[in-house]
């Protein structure tokens, strides 16, 4: 659908009620909500069609509060419990008003998202610990995206791919137009009454990451597409939108060092840390591998590895635990002796042998159970391994090399409960809204709990779309 004549202000260039920049979960929820609110909507996705959707294409579930079990959720997850989980993972670095609002709204999202064509399924194999709290998308994130795009297009939302925005025209906190690198229907400037910015963080922008991380960022692997460059975020901040969040904070996990630089997605991750030890390039342990249970432990290892020399580490384990975790994309590197393994990893054999020997000697007897915080622990070494500690002594000895895998960054635009952007002077923008990773930092000061990114996207996407349409129709 093209914008109707009533939306053409001057009869020459087209003008939409709502312009959505971005093409992921948040953007599509905003576009659908705005269209359902009666607005004409254009979505500008900077990536080509196959790579549409930013990080959403790699997601698989969403964390929503619910008061009772559902067909796919095994039990209730109250607003209060969700809030406590959020408080714990962020260490209190969150906006309580905004976060509680999001949690409340998340309850309705469980049904709303299904009305938009997305289908749920019970938690996937190997993720049973999320069965009560998180709803999984049947077919994964790309299936979810396909459903949202299909619904948006059926409703009459216009979608353009490869539509890179190179400038935003903003006056006194008022969005006027977006300038395009490549003309769409002969036009390089798109005007709209409201703007929804849902274009994600800057995780794929290595130069920008280097501003905060230095050269270490050269060794980061980016789990999503190379299109998540944060250019819209940067334009907004440069043009007076208030900033929120710590620029060094991000969701980062340990992923296989052999993964591609971009878009390796979920399959390059390693869940095997608890079954062994993790050493750095000097073959030294540096953190308690048994600190916490999956998935809470999962999201700390990216940052831990990022802090090690050359941003590389090695998960070392033995043949007895190979079948304890999910099969991996890349096979483990194997050696018949610890020294041989060290050679293949290009570590100092004597140093690795010493580390393993000292670790083995420190392991106390206990009853191993990886589903609980068990009593298998070490004594007398630093750092300790406080749970699931077992000797590494049955060859072949195995290792996965890991690097920090950056999922998304938390630096963003400050927003109100209506997803309206706040300007640097504290005044709310007249017509600019933000949703998804671009404003995740409002809720996530640091830390992460599985499925939160999608909750932020859907909840604030829907709110932003609704409010943007309301503004445009008034």
């Amino acid at each position, binding site marked *: 659908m093209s914008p109707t004549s009533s939306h053409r202000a001057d009869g020459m260039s087209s003008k939409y009620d709502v312009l959505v920049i971005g093409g992921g979960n948040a953007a599509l929820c905003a576009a659908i909500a705005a269209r359902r609110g009666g607005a004409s909507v254009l979505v500008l996705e900077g990536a080509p069609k*196959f790579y549409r959707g930013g990080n959403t*294409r*790699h997601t*698989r579930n969403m964390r929503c509060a619910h008061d009772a079990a559902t067909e796919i959720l095994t039990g209730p997850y109250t607003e209060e419990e969700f809030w406590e989980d959020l408080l714990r993972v962020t260490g209190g670095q969150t906006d309580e008003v905004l976060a509680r609002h999001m949690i409340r709204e998340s309850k309705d999202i469980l049904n709303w998202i299904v009305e938009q064509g997305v*289908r749920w*399924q*019970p938690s*996937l*194999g*190997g993720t049973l610990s999320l069965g009560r709290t998180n709803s*999984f*998308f*049947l*077919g*994964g*994130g*790309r*299936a979810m995206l*396909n459903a949202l*795009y*299909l619904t948006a297009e059926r409703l009459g939302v216009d979608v353009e791919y490869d539509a890179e925005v190179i400038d935003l025209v903003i006056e006194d906190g008022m969005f006027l137009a977006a300038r395009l690198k490549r003309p769409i229907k002969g036009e390089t400037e798109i005007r709209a009454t409201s703007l929804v910015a849902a274009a994600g963080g800057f995780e794929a922008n290595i130069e920008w990451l280097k501003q905060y991380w230095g050269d270490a960022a050269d060794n980061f692997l980016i789990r999503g597409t190379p299109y998540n460059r944060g250019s819209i975020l940067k334009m907004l901040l440069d043009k007076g939108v208030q900033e929120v969040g710590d620029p060094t904070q991000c969701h980062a996990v340990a992923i296989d060092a052999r993964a*591609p630089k971009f*878009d390796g*997605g*979920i*399959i390059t991750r390693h869940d095997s840390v608890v079954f062994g030890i993790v050493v750095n390039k000097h073959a030294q342990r540096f953190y308690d591998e048994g600190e916490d249970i999956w998935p809470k432990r999962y999201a700390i290892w990216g940052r831990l590895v990022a802090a090690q020399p050359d941003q590389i580490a090695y998960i070392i384990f033995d043949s007895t635990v190979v*079948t304890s975790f*999910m*099969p*991996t*994309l890349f096979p483990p590197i194997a050696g018949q002796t610890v020294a041989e393994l060290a050679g293949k990893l290009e570590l100092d054999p004597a140093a690795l042998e010493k580390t393993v020997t000292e670790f083995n000697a420190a392991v106390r007897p206990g009853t191993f159970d990886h589903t609980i915080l068990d009593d298998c622990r070490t004594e007398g070494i630093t750092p300790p391994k406080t749970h699931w500690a077992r000797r590494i002594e049955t060859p072949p000895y195995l290792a996965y090399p890991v690097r920090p895998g950056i999922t998304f960054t938390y630096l963003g635009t400050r927003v109100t409960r209506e997803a309206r952007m706040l300007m640097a002077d504290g005044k709310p923008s007249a017509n600019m809204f933000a949703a998804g990773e671009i404003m995740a930092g409002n809720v996530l000061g640091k830390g992460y709990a599985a499925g939160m990114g999608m909750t932020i996207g859907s909840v604030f996407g829907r709110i932003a779309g609704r409010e943007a349409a309301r503004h445009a129709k008034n």
Partner: protein
Amino acid sequence: MHGTRILDEADRLMTVCNSCRYCEGLCAVFPAMEMRRAFSDGDLNYLANLCHSCGACYVDCQFSPPHEFNVNVPKTLAVARAESYAAYAWPQALSGAFARNGLVISLIAALSMAAFIFGFAALNDRSVLFGVHTGPGAFYRLMPHNAMAALFSVAFLYAILALVMSVRAFWRDIGTPIGGRADGGSIVQAIRDAGELRYLHGGGVGCYNEDDKPTDRRKLYHHLTFYGFLLCFAATSVATLYHYLLGREAPYPWWDLPVVLGALGGIGLIVGPIGLFVAKLRGAPELLDEQRYGMDVGFIAMLFLTGLTGMLLLILRETAAMGPLLALHLGAVFALFITIPYGKFVHGIYRFAALVRYAQERRTAP
């Protein structure tokens, strides 16, 4: 490493998929994959035959082309599946029939129909061939019933034997323990799954064609074809019983059971294959195994020809066209019978065996 390039590729993909598992809820292939950490030739052939080629996992996959991981499960399993038909064919000397299957099937069909035409012409007087025959035994004035029964029984029994031997080899390869038997409960489950085409559903929304919008009606057309075939088979079986038990000879009046069953089945065998053929033309090219286009189309055409000649015979049986039409129909059915073990027909048998195996695995899974 495996015996063939396609199995190597299938192994690579299953390793990718097993570390992702997002597609677990779409069909039986992925849960079956998750029960394994490594894949033998038999495992891969099993997974290939479990796949119903709905395409959902391709459009849902974040790693499908142009992504560098190049994950195309439906196509890879389609090729592996077709190669498995040749690998398990009995006798092995005839496995080459799968290589240029479209050509083989068309030649056999043409030869078979021609043989019946010439046979009828040679053995019958012109006035008999083009005569109008009515009443019980009308067909047998052109070909004696015993000769017809003997010829088709031999063809049918051979087809059964070849199928049994082939699927036996397949079963031994995919089973654990090797040579283990199927239990009744698993067979009942597989009959249900196959009967409703449970996994030909794109994860619940239908199959995929030229784009990411699931619009395919393949399931409907497959039902028409399959149940049409079964009805025709039932019609023939009832007629055989009539002949031997009741002494009642074909042709039967239009309201009689064999004709009703045959007419309904015939409609299914005409409409179903047309629908399947159109779906094939519209199918997403990146999911298709183009090499096997001839095999698929050949089988669809054989079913269509069987249905069409049968229906024409029913409609025109009291005219002078009956003789030639009977020859054509018998030629089509004969060709269908003898090519059953060496054409697309086998997909149903292997897939059924795979579904039995899957039901079994689900029951015994920890």
